[in-house]
């Protein structure tokens, strides 16, 4: 079997508008391994320590975020990187499969909106969260909350 001959690629035409797709490629390859580390740790702590999935309740989340700002920063980085990595991946799929121009524009708009809303909502929740909300049932709160 002989190898097929391939014509060498033409020199760069200089017509591409920017290096946006190169940066998309680079971002995916840097955020990927970081997300592996962040998410595997997240899954390990939440699902494999203590009582596994059944330990997760308001007190667990409140305790984690209140215990150390590390987990707030951790969850924020995870949120932003995962949404950008996932959103960019979905953008590639939309560009591949949505052939109709208006449909593609609509899908890309919806995608950008979803990423923006979810990142904003998640960041607000992480940083405005109150582990001991006033008037809440004390039995549902983490143990460090002052009893009324």
């Amino acid at each position, binding site marked *: 079997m002989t190898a097929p001959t391939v014509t060498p690629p033409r020199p760069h035409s200089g017509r591409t508008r920017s290096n946006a797709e190169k940066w998309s490629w680079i971002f995916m*390859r840097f955020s*990927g*391994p970081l*997300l*592996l580390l962040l*998410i*595997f740790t997240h*899954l390990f702590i939440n*699902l*494999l320590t203590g*009582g*596994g*999935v*059944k*330990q*997760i*309740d*308001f*007190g667990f*989340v*409140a305790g984690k975020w209140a215990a150390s700002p590390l987990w707030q920063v951790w969850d924020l980085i995870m*949120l932003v990187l*995962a*949404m950008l990595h*996932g*959103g960019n*991946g*979905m953008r590639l*799929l939309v560009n591949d499969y949505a052939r109709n121009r208006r449909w593609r524009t609509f899908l890309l708009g919806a995608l950008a909106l*979803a990423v923006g809303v*979810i990142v904003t*909502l*998640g960041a*607000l*929740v992480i940083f*405005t*969260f109150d582990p001991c*909300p006033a008037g*809440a*049932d004390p039995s*549902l*709160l983490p143990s460090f909350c002052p009893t009324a």
Partner: protein
Amino acid sequence: MSPARTLYRGREGMWMWVVHRATGVAIFFFLLIHVLDTSLVRVSPEAYNQVIGSYKTPLYGLVEAGLVAAIVLHAFNGIRIILVDTWSWALRHQRLLVWIVWGLFVLAMAGFLPRHLAAVFGGGA
């Protein structure tokens, strides 16, 4: 008539491309839901506990196992993609690396599933 097989078409590399896209889409939509459910901690402890309670049912426990499987597979194959892109040895052995990805995936799930399924089905708090 189906297209003829080539070095790529119908082989390990192409199927991992399909797996990578499918798991990526599944993880993306779960992530949207997951941020929304976690946001309930800002509403009230009752609201969060009620919704997160559904994650502890046997049915959702299995869905979670599937999600973890998707994440592990996507993560390991992503590392393979990076290696293939940056290291000529990995490019030459990308098919072997596909089987290494599956091997590591099976090992990771063998470590995860017993503990997770015991937590989901084993009663307790």
